[in-house]
């Protein structure tokens, strides 16, 4: 059964007809063509399909699309398309990925982490990001990138 739903994605509002059993992941990929959102496991275990809903990281494979109506949905496409966001730049500069399938999920989760906790310890980073899996095993460089991003954001704040 199809249902008309208005979704607010990356600042744009769009009405889409979605099957009621389709997930937000399905709709972001198939209707919005936002390919940074990727299915890894389909059951909320890997974090590859992470998006921000009103700023909070969630697994978009677990949320039925109609339930996302009225919420602010953010994917990595909204971050720094002209100039990279400091978190993205930190991931590039620290080579914090290999195949990079998981990278958008890590970046969005990191964004929320650093909003909640601008100066995390390595242990806090590991705990917060434990729901995002990187099968290539780039975790050490991801940790470096997150700590580096924290510094960059704090500097940015100080000079603003």
């Amino acid at each position, binding site marked *: 059964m199809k249902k008309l739903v208005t979704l607010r994605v990356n600042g744009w509002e769009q009405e889409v007809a979605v099957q009621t059993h389709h997930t937000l992941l399905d709709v972001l990929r198939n209707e919005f063509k936002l390919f940074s959102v990727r299915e890894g496991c389909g059951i909320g275990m890997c974090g590859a399909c992470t998006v921000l809903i009103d700023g909070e990281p969630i697994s978009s494979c677990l949320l039925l699309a109609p339930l996302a109506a009225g919420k602010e949905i953010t994917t990595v496409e909204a971050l720094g398309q002209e100039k990279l966001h400091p978190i993205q730049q930190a991931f590039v500069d620290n080579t914090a990925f290999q195949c990079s399938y998981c990278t958008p999920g890590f970046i969005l989760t990191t964004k929320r982490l650093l909003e909640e906790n601008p100066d995390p310890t390595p242990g806090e980073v590991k705990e917060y990001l434990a729901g995002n899996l990187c099968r290539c095993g780039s975790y*050490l*460089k991801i940790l470096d990138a997150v700590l580096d991003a924290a510094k960059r954001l704090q500097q940015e704040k100080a000079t603003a």
Partner: protein
Amino acid sequence: MASPVGQNVGYIDGGERVRGQVSYVLNAELPGCLTAKVLRSPHAHARILNVDTSKAEKVPGVVAVLSRNDLIDNPELYPYFGPVIRDTPVVAMDKVRFVGDPVAAVAALDEDIAQQALDLIEVEYEELPAVFDPEEALKPGAPILHESFPPQRGATFADIVFNPGEGSNVLNHFKLRKGDVEKGFAEADRVFEHTFRSPPVQHVPLEPHVTMAQVEAGRITIWSGTQTPHVIRAQIADIFQAPLSQVRIIVHTLGGAYGSKCYPKLEPLVSVLAAKAKRPVKLVLRREEDFLTCTKHQSIIHLKTGIDKEGRIVARKATCYFNAGAYSDISPRLIKNGGYATSGPYRIPNVWVDSYAVYTNIVSAGAFRGYGVSQAAWAYESQMDMIAEALGRDPLEYREFNVLHDGDTFCTGETVHDMHYRGLLLDDAKKAINWQDGKEAWWQSPARTASGTKRRGKAITCVIKGSVTPSTSSASCKLNEDGSLNVLTSSVEMGQGAKTALAQLAAEAAALPFEAISISEPDTDSTPYDQQTSSSRTTYSMGTAVTMAVNDAIDQLKALAADQLEISPEDLETRDGRVWVKDSSRSLSYVDVIRRSRVGNILGNGTFATTGGLDPETGQGVGSVHWHHAAAACEVEVDTETGKVDILQFHSSCFAGRVVNPRLCELQIEGSTLFGVGQSLFEEMLYDDGHLSNPNLSDYMIPSFEDVPPRLSVAAIEHSAAGEVHGIGETSVPPVMPCVANAVYNATGVRITELPLTPEKILRALKEQGS
């Protein structure tokens, strides 16, 4: 301008990677493209009596349904494939051979319609007895999976040694005979016999297997996440009985592979379905289906080792059973590598290896990072510590005593060079964990037994691994009129940084900045032949081919410049994008030379082929163009109340020869180490009567941030005398599992011989130890 080789150049497309813009095949779209779904066998072994697709075909939105009905007696399609032997049907023909074997496929307007149609396909089965364990499968009276072998068609790989066991479940038997092993045992002072087991595990690339195909006007075009585009092209050409020129394989960057995307997987089914639908078709596997594509081989290895009075290993007999699953995939080759690997990096004069690939009714096994060496190293590096204990020797000192040196003979009979265990790898490993000679092993420090529920232990292991030999890579390049360079290769970027490393090598050869280089994606219509992106061979093999291609272009450039400067080409050199007269300030830019000569661009070609191979009866010859080697060191803490193992520290040392990109090397070695950590502690595909019971990331765990050892370090070790690039993509997987197990032993005195080292196994062993 310094060479970018050896520099921490970032990924060539780092910006796209953090913007989520990598063009995985998962994202590929074509107008009118249909969605495919696959109907799979619910039985481990059954004869197919009838397949009725008539109801499915009538579902509105269904464009094509593929089953054996389309393939039986169809002269236009050869319905079997396989990289070595064609034993794998496009969809099941006479039988199904594992739970999940594809039986039929639907192409429809969307996934929901395809699923609805799948449910309407009626299949009549006659269930057959099934067998799941490789040793059981070899017993008389065991159910036979393949009653006969299909006739050999087409070429296979030059290195394959093929001794099939017609009429049994033996898919292939690799033999190695060096010296006189029985005489060796007769003269040995002591003989040790142990058996080691490891389970099937899955690669779990986060991007699943994805293939899209279009068959139009006699041309077959396939977009696929594959590590082996040229193998796919040959196999698809064979199925469609088309010339290679009519088959086009396009590969985008892969979201992880680790061996799982080698050789045909979805491509035969999707292309045949697309041909029937007369429209493009795309198939994306869900995670639970991806578990049905291929696995690491389950293994059972019996190891018998003879030692002389001084502790030298004088004889080794290895009998290896690799569970190949239902179809051949690349098992015929893998059991060779896994077979000869059982000698490890040790000097052994008398060796006898029987290594079997055995058909059983589970998911087919294929290439998996470590490629047979992980199974072998699990056996020989565990046994190495067991022997050291029996002899009262220090495990590190005992390895150094037996390890290969330059000029020694490997079990394949070849003389080895560039061996860096002593003085480099083992020293690095020892230093990293502060190993104290004579004090670290369980038998050297009996005080450990005293008290406490948290027991700590250390271990050091080392391994040797070959790279597929002989093999061939070719590359082309276009030096453009603006001084930029396109490199055309069929090497697949799958996260290992192939494109970045190849661009660094091309920039060095071309004397151009890194930014001037563009590396193609594989497209068999335009990119030259490469055997495969696997076996840790790309930076070495394709890197050499790329360098040769660039040198070819530069030679032509010099010839053109020589005319323009009226000087001999020998008197010219290239630097900073210019051709210089040696020892002079006269020069021309590449741009000027190409524009003035009006050649448009300069085309360069390079082909690099290695030679070697092993004798089919003795396993003697050249196993590898050069040898990859690695060592590992760790410290663990075992909780004797829960059986849980915490890896407190892990260090991997990998020989790299010449490092092209230090940070990418670190990433590869860190990734390999974590692959090993998962396999050490928890990764295991669990079967219940042939049904895989944990095909999801809730029940099958892969390492997360919390599984990273608190102290994890790696070293890509260079050696000035060895300017040659050595692959580092997987050598650091095999040493991990025995390193963890030996450290657990040194902590607790508990020896586990079957992976993974679960708390249940350790608790049980501790209980037995106490009683």
